[in-house]
């Protein structure tokens, strides 16, 4: 999958960190660090994070057909 977070929007509510702790981490109080290219197996977790974000800052989509990472 491919993930991008609009960090202008992000307000560090950290809901993604709870939803997908292996792929979203806070460094310090508000600096979000995330996995831009998680494995397809993490899809359910990542989608939980997308929906948990109160400011809808996360975009996550499967790799385009025919392309793997």
């Amino acid at each position, binding site marked *: *999958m*491919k*993930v*991008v977070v*609009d*960090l*202008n929007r*992000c*307000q*560090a*509510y950290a809901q993604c960190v709870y939803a997908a702790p292996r*792929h979203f981490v806070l*460094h*310090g*109080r*508000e*600096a*979000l*660090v*995330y*996995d*831009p*290219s*998680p494995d397809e197996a993490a899809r359910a977790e990542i989608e939980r994070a997308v929906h948990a974000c109160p400011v809808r800052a996360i*975009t*996550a*989509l499967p790799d*385009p*057909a025919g*392309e793997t*990472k």
Partner: protein
Amino acid sequence: MTAGPSGPPERILVVGASLAGLSAAHALRAEGFAGALTLVGDEPHAPYDRPPLSKQVLRGLFSPDTTLPRRPELRAEFRLGTPASRLDCEARTVTLADGSTLPYDRLLIATGTRARPWPNPEEASLDGVFTLRTRDDAARLSARFKAGPKRVVLVGGGFIGFEVASTCRDLDIPVSLLVRDGQPLAAALGPRLGGLVGTIAQERGVDLRLGAEIERMDSEGGRLTGVTLKDGERIEADLLVAAIGAVRNVAWLEGSGLAADEGGVLCDGYCRAIRANGDIVPDVFVAGDVARWPNPHQGEALVAVEHWGNARAQAEAAARNMLAGPATGLTRHDHLPDFWSQQFGLTIKLVGLADGADSLAVVHGSLDARRFVALYGREGRTVAAASIDSARWLPAYEAAIREGAPFPPIEGAIDQPRLRIEEP
């Protein structure tokens, strides 16, 4: 001729396959464009995100693959690794470096910038001397960071310099940060907050040198061994990163008739390219780092900003205008400049333009706590707001900046201490 666009487009060409180009392509499909869509990119990679490169990618956290998500309905043809070399507005064609010619009904210019090279080419080619802009740059530099350099010298007092310095400290690599000006980040944040970030960097072990410039680089057998500063001091270092700004990719537009120079490709508030003689080119649009346009939040002054948020917003405005028919109004690009930076575990954010501010007021938190929102005033108007680790409160000030609300803001509200108006 300033006629409107000529009929609904069947072929749209986007030159530039990074954030702005991809955002425009997504927006074109979202707006219902069903024709042929081609993106041309000079790098061999599919569109990828750059902000993580100076931070987590260099540090080796998570995947180095920051390819941006692409929607399945994008249905775009990518011509990657082949830069555009010529634009012919009359014939409506773009020629690529491999000699192929692509026709268009609408064209978006989103060729962005490249890292400004170190001015001395002999020094720039030394082993150990880097710039940081692309995925490949980040991969090479990251490998050198892993090998455990003795010391990294960073040149440049902007955000990339500070972010890379922060990454070095995370990896426990000794780092010297050379800033030519007397204050770091002053153009973006003003001297007060720029100085605060400088202090934080020093506390985290960065050897910060203000007013420092390189006289020459020292080398042995083609490898960097250190730098000698203008004041004669020598710093031993085996890696150097020149973060000295960006150069706009406009050379391919030479002879096109467009008003394009090192300041960017000139366009109007609707992202339409402008000829050197002032005429609007109805079918050619510009977006992202390469665009220079009248900014309504700065008295219509012509600006070019290298911000992630602007690239997306301008690309989306351009996409809507590319599809606008004679009966459809054009969308004004009136995005309020915004950016973020992560360094030393802090998130710094800014909305508006702090450059030229004459006063500053902390309206939430405190500088001492390193957690605050500060407003910038200029001639009695609110022009920008900056925050450190207080992102939740920053959007509350956007409206005040958009409308140029009086500065200082309301004083004596029951939920805030007395505001102190300071130098910016």
